[in-house]
């Protein structure tokens, strides 16, 4: 009962924060203008158009709403991926980057930039790079002992190291005048690239991925009991583990391909969710999605409005993530027993 109330409150909070986000930025809009433009776009003419209606429409639909959508999708996807990884590895200190997806996606994007591929090419290469890195890590684990989770973590470490080295190599060979700054800026994480078209690619996989992973929630709870016990409860452990890793990896790689490297969120947010609704993954996963979306929206609002020049959102997310994590850390002792 309490958990469902928290869930509803989180969703309501997300809508409120999204509305506020539509108003803040370099050109502050007030709620009336936003509402008018939205109603007008929906075909309802609420009254005579204000003199700046065209400008408001352009700001809102050309820039702000896609960004808000992007922040929601990226924040939700990273948090769900993080919560899923933590459940699969039975470890609250795991982040979506564990198996190398972030390093791989970064390398893919850098390759795209050095190659001179357009924005879509960079995004595509980044997505492929993320999947390739995880596939490599899992492959290394399989060469030795497929069933061992420790081997999987080692595989991830090796894959991360390899792709980080490749990324350094690409930075080294990149043209220092224009390519290197592009790579660096891209790695900082930013939502400036989110176009309506990119958003339309992002929305469906994030929604479906979140729903599929949440549907596995009760089985993931069973996995917390240990592999063998989970099998005696009727859970196909290996299929579940690799299925969930696959789904979470696709989500994480997608976020990097549209928004660059935004770390932390995936590690911090599931803890906050567990604090609110308890350890059951059926609730932790969707609530993580909501909180992650709110968190990244707030970060992006700050990125857009703190200074005249936009600050990379990845940077803000890292800083704010540290603040949130440190402030909830004393409470977290209730959330797990280490």
């Amino acid at each position, binding site marked *: 009962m309490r958990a469902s109330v928290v869930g509803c409150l989180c969703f309501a909070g997300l809508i409120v924060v999204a509305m506020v986000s539509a108003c803040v930025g370099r050109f502050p809009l007030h709620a009336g203008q936003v509402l008018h433009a939205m109603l007008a776009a929906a075909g309802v003419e609420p009254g005579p158009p204000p003199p700046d209606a065209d400008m408001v429409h352009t700001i809102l639909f050309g820039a702000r709403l896609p960004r808000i959508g992007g922040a929601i999708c990226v924040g939700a996807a990273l948090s769900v991926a993080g919560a899923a990884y933590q459940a699969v590895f039975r470890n*609250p200190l795991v982040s979506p980057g564990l198996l190398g997806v972030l390093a791989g996606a970064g390398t893919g994007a850098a390759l795209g930039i050095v190659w001179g591929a357009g924005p879509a090419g960079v995004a595509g290469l980044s997505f492929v790079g993320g999947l390739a890195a995880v596939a490599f890590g899992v492959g290394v684990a399989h060469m030795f002992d497929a069933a061992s989770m420790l081997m999987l973590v080692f595989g991830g470490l090796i894959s991360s190291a390899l792709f980080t080295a490749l990324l350094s190599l690409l930075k080294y060979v990149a043209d220092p005048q224009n390519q290197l700054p592009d790579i660096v800026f891209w790695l900082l994480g930013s939502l400036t690239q989110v176009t309506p078209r990119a958003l339309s690619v992002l929305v469906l996989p994030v929604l479906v991925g979140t729903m599929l992973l949440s549907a596995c*929630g009760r089985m993931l709870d069973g996995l917390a*009991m*240990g592999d063998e016990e989970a099998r005696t409860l009727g859970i196909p452990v290996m299929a579940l583990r690799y299925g969930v890793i696959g789904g979470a990896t696709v989500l994480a790689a997608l976020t990097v391909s549209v928004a660059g490297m935004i770390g932390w969120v995936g590690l911090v947010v599931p803890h906050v969710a567990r604090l609110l609704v308890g*350890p*059951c993954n059926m609730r932790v996963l969707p609530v993580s999605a909501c909180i992650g979306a709110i968190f990244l929206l707030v970060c992006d609002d700050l990125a857009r409005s703190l200074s005249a020049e936009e600050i990379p959102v990845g940077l803000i997310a890292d800083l704010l993530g540290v603040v949130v994590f440190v402030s909830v850390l004393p409470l977290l002792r209730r959330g*797990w027993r280490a």
Partner: protein
Amino acid sequence: MKADTPVLCLDHVRFRHGRRTVLHDLSFAIHAGELTALLGPNGAGKTTLLRLMLGLVQPDTGQVWLDGRPMADWSRREVARRIAYVPQGHVPLFPYTVRDIVGMGRLAETPFAPSLRATDCSAVEHAMAELAITRLAGRPYTDLSGGERQAVLLARALAQGARTLILDEPETGLDHGQKQRLYALLRRLAEQGHAVVATTHDPFQAARVFDRAVLLRDGRIVGDGPAETVLCADMVDRLYAPHGQTAI
């Protein structure tokens, strides 16, 4: 009381771990309504035998039969509906409540459902009532004592609704009263038609409580029959006798 067809049957099973043979040519059957104790010194192969019976590992040669079909032909879900396992109490990382843990016994029925159905809920409540842990339902499992945790894991196995129960040293960490209640419960389950197999380190208690005892030493069955007869002082001494110069 014995049903004619065994629910679980090991047929000339051999199991190797690396180059070491852990179980040599083992054959025995488990019947409904029977309370079986599995005894043997540490390292005799009890745990491996339990894992074989649960279908967690496959034998190198021979066959494990469950309800008349080879174990390997059943899916994990189908095995979980027929065999429930009560491990030794352990502490998971996340503080699931007692009701959450007992509810995991229903995973084989509804793995993808967002919440338990009415039939699942009633199975969970019934199992908790059977173990007298309903008052603990909302408590975090991680806060419980060893005996309470054991009761929760037993309730989960009951909620699973399986006909065969396999328990790994269920009396570990229980006080005298809790042990007596545990044995009474196992007896009641057997009378309801469950097949119950438990490993135990207490031969004298086992002789009084169990119908049948299977003695395992060095991966071989060295005794199998009515618990009172098999677990005589002489047999127990020989079962636990040290090998050569072993210190303890």
